[in-house]
């Protein structure tokens, strides 16, 4: 029987009021400000900007506060806000070769122009809890050393001089945009990179890890990892020339992978690429590994049935907002669906019981 019901408004309102109270927590403790989150939880802010696919540290910090620290909920808030903004246009591609680098390391070359610059990294820390932070100690300013201010060249350029690595030649094709058209397969590399840049960090990490463990053989070296700021330039139609409209922090990772050669290509190194908003190096390295695994077809490699090689599997499951939307909808009322399932199970039961009784009688 189908019964239309309505209701729950008061329960919902009261639930939201209680949510607001729980979000605030103990009133005897200071309320967290948005600038505090932006400045002191900056890696959470960076993740929300990267996966929310909108560079705006203040908005990301606000979303984290509103979401009570649930980063996927915060990303959801940013994605929803993003859809309300008019699009002014597209920037020129950012020039990562001109990045003002906070960090720049290579696992393949020890001595390279520009050097190995560690930056503000967790690497080489002991991963011991620091109870001084609980005591809210003042932090001394970091040491400085004279800087040259010169552009830091990409590591792949050195390999390229010997022709030992595949080229990435510039072109001016307009890339497809996942925010404007649905994901369709086959997806070219530009679409895959857009999807991966906004993909869930955990999913991307697991996919990348699977390639390292042997699901798609693609032994990667981090040719280069760099973190820093780049200006964003855009053509302004009213002015008839392009101007810098801002500056963003990004993390870029290039992997170098061995390649035995194919019918058309000589043996050489191939490349995987990761580029992500903010200081987000785990994600950028993961993205580069997954990008490389997805390139098996264009490089003439075998499909080994590995999940990370399967563009459909990776691209359709990488977005945490799509995933959580579908996953969490099953907790919402399905009373009518369930009623029909219930009727069906009762009917099957009655039939099974009748059959058993009949068999017993015979």
């Amino acid at each position, binding site marked *: 029987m189908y019964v239309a019901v309505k209701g729950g408004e008061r329960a919902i309102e009261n639930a939201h009021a209680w949510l607001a109270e729980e979000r605030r927590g103990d009133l005897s403790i200071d309320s967290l400000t948005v600038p505090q989150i932006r400045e002191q939880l900056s890696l959470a802010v960076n993740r929300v900007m990267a996966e929310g696919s909108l560079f705006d540290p203040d908005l990301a910090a606000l979303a984290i506060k509103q979401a009570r620290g649930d980063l996927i909920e915060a990303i959801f808030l940013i994605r929803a806000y993003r859809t309300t903004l008019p699009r002014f246009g597209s920037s020129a591609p950012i020039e990562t070769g001109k990045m003002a680098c906070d960090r720049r390391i290579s696992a393949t070359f020890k001595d390279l122009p520009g050097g190995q610059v560690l930056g503000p990294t967790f690497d080489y820390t002991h991963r011991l809890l620091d109870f001084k932070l609980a005591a809210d100690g003042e932090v001394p300013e970091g040491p400085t050393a004279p800087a040259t201010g010169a552009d830091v060249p990409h590591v792949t350029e050195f390999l390229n001089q010997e022709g030992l690595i595949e080229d990435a030649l510039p072109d001016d094709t307009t890339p497809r945009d996942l925010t404007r058209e649905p994901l369709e397969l086959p997806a070219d590399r*530009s679409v895959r990179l857009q999807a991966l840049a906004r993909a869930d960090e955990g999913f991307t990490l697991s996919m990348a890890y699977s390639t390292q463990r042997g699901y798609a053989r693609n032994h990667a070296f981090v040719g280069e990892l760099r973190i820093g700021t780049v200006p964003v330039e855009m053509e302004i139609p009213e002015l008839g020339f392009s101007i810098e409209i801002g500056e963003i922090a990004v993390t870029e990772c290039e992997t170098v992978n061995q390649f035995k050669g194919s019918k058309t290509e000589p043996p050489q190194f191939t490349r995987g690429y990761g580029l992500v908003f903010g200081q987000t190096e785990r994600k950028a390295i993961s993205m580069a590994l997954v990008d490389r695994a997805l390139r098996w077809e264009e490089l003439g490699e075998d499909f080994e049935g590995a999940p990370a090689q399967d563009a459909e599997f990776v691209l359709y499951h990488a977005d945490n907002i799509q995933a959580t939307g579908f996953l969490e909808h099953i907790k919402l009322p399905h009373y009518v669906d369930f009623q029909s399932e219930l009727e069906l199970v009762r009917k099957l039961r009655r039939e099974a019981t009748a059959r058993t009784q009949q068999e017993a009688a015979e």
Partner: protein
Amino acid sequence: MNDMSDPVAPRKSWMGLLAKAKPGSVSTYLDARFKRPDFAWLRPPEIGSVMVQGRTGGTGSPFNLGEMTVTRCTLKLATGEVGFAYIQGRSKPCAEAAALVDAMMQTEMAEDIRTHVLAPLQADAAAAKKIRAEKAAATKVDFFTMVRGED
């Protein structure tokens, strides 16, 4: 960007400087020395987004990385000069100040504006960039050879 043969190079340069300025700083420097001129909006401040592109492998085909927030506006001074602003973030007052400076740079006040607004903004930006570069430089690894395995 500072190609002297390019007639729009100076304007490109100051508009870029205004776009990247620390929030509030354009207004601070402007209001410290100047009375804001009368103007009319041609396009009042509007918040929107710009899709930022990257290049595959750093140098190859473009792809869409994600969006950034941008505020833009256009105004016209009572004396006729038109000022534009396209600035990062969501601050309408900052966009207004940037567009005013862009317009005033087209008037006889240009040299004063350059000295008292653009120069300090440039100095702030250079100082912020320098300190980060110097902190990064302090984390540069110096390798030294402990033992050579030649014996």
